């Protein structure tokens, strides 16, 4: 190989460096028109990217939305906390519980109805605090593979949380683990079924211990739970009703029941402190809360939306007034201890 001259190499390196710098500058210039939305992939990605709502947002406001997708609520908040000092996202949406934990770390700004007029249309229950509003939510459900039920001649579950304890489900149950938001809801639900509550979690933990040996797996995501219910290695699960409906739409042979009292799981949203595009963030949040977008979410994904102008909610927002409230602050404060007990006393197979 012929030796390459040093100056030729240097010129090539300098040229490459310069072109990278120029390209980077061009990206930075276009940023002011982009709103970065940190939330789940899944159905939100489908809404914005595949179902054309991202384009509609641009038509309505002139801004472009760029989704920053994560798999779980806590991951969303972890990503937001990680950029606390120099945020790169504008709007954040996650499960209510992790959102509140993030809010404790001071990463969100107060939301003003003057800038985001659609806040006025939200049900009172949706106004969590100065920095957080609920966009929509889901009710929790018992999901079951009806083919397995038919095969085993099991009676289909009643709308009662105590059904989770049915002895024949041993070896066929999939429940989310307590270190996830939905897993906390399982724990609280079982505590309530057995006369406890989030303030008296013991009965819930005892119920989980009783169920544990008969649990196939503790899946952490919707996709993973769907997989176990699809291949028949599990027959009964606990997840949100909209996820259950989505599983059925994807061809998984599942049905679901929504037991009473309703267990509501909220989705919260807010704006990052020192967001790179605060004006765009307000425009996006206002648009996201609008009747058009929320009606679509209710129709397509079965979300219980908080905009009171929405007429096609699967459950009227007023029904939420009858649901049992959860002391979220207490749950967040007790989480670490509950997870500890769960990991040591419930999870291991003896």
């Amino acid at each position, binding site marked *: *190989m*012929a*030796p*390459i001259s*040093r100056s030729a*190499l*240097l010129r090539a*390196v300098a040229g490459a460096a310069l072109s990278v710098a120029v390209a980077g500058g061009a990206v930075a210039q276009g940023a002011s028109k982009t709103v970065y939305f940190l939330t789940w992939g899944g159905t939100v990605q489908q809404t914005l990217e595949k179902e054309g709502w991202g384009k509609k947002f641009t038509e309505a406001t002139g801004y472009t939305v760029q989704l920053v997708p994560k798999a*779980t609520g*806590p*991951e969303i*908040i*972890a990503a937001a*906390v990680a950029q*606390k000092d120099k945020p790169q996202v504008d709007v954040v949406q996650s499960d209510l519980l*992790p959102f509140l*934990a*993030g809010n*404790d*770390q*001071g990463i969100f700004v107060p939301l003003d109805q003057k800038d985001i007029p659609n806040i006025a249309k939200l049900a009172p229950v949706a106004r969590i605090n100065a920095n957080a509003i609920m966009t929509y939510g889901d009710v929790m459900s018992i999901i079951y593979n009806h083919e397995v039920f038919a095969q085993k001649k099991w009676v289909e579950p009643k709308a009662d949380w105590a059904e989770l304890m049915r002895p024949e489900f041993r070896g066929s149950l999939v429940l989310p*683990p307590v*270190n*996830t938001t939905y897993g906390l809801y399982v724990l609280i639900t079982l505590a309530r079924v057995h006369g406890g509550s989030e303030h008296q979690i013991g009965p819930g933990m005892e119920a989980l211990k009783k169920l544990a040996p008969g649990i*196939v*797996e*503790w*899946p*952490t995501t919707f996709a*993973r739970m769907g*997989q176990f219910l699809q*291949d*028949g*290695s599990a027959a009964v699960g606990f997840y949100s009703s909209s996820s259950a409906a989505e599983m059925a739409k994807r061809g998984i042979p599942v049905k679901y029941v929504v037991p009473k009292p309703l267990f509501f799981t909220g989705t919260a949203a807010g704006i990052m402190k020192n967001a790179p595009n605060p004006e765009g963030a307000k425009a996006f949040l206002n648009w996201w809360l609008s009747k058009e977008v929320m009606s679509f979410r209710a129709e397509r994904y079965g979300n219980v939306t908080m905009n009171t102008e929405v007429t096609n909610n699967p459950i009227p927002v007023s029904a939420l007034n009858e649901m049992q409230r959860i002391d979220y602050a207490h749950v*967040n*404060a007790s*989480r*670490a201890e509950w*997870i*500890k007990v769960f*990991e*040591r006393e419930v*999870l*291991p*197979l003896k």
Partner: protein
Amino acid sequence: MTGAAAGRAALGVRLGGGVWIFLGPALLLMLAVYLAPLIDTAVISLHPNTPAGIDRSHWTTANFLRLVDTYYWGVLVRTLRVSIIITLLSVLLAYPVAVWLAGLGPRGQTWAILVYMSPWFVNAVVKSFGWTLILGNNGLVNNGLRALGLIDTPLRLMLNETGIVIGLLPGHFLFVLLPLWAALKGLDGNLRWAAMTLGARPWQVFLRVTVPLTLPALLAGAIINFTMNMAAFAAPALLGGTRTRVLSFIAYQVNLEELNWPFGGALAVAMLVVTLGFVMLAQGITARGLAGPRR
């Protein structure tokens, strides 16, 4: 010619002091995106965690003391056990395959290597989902065995340590195989002939000539294999399941689900120390092996 000089000659460039211009970008990148966060992780692990975030005004060793708690200790032991089992199996399986490979013609070697590389053509998550179709209670293996009347209740092939070993072995095996294959190819055939003319039987030639001469390559491969097993994430998460967590997953969970970065940092530091400890141990063995070859 020294190694460095040979490297420069191969490049066809006389760099002189200009070497730093070329090393600089990679060095800066490593400092900025690897070393700095790593050091910060270690520093964070010495601060307490509060609901308002990391409290950088106080120092503590509590995060490290929590590591000896039975749960985390159990996870560490499991991670080591699974990693060592995969490395041992890889080493055992690699010798016959490498000997066979080195004996093939050039074209045959290319194709065979491609086959062994094929697990890397598929994304780790997709691969693990594929394994669940094979290993699950209603998977290929269990359904097959049931159809043959060999079992009544399904074998537990996943959601346990067996699942992790099965999921990681095919991909990580390559990293033991490749250096061993290269070393065997480079082995001077005359040495084996010489040993045989002096009366050594084939197994003696293998044990006393081939193995000692290829041992450094084997150990190098085993070290890479072991560190990859320790750090693996997707396959243990999907095939080990929630009951069989390994250290990398617990670190993820503590950092990203419990938002406890200080304790997550302590877990990361522990993992680094344990892995480095094993790597240095293996390197020590290699160095000793090279200094005093068997006679």
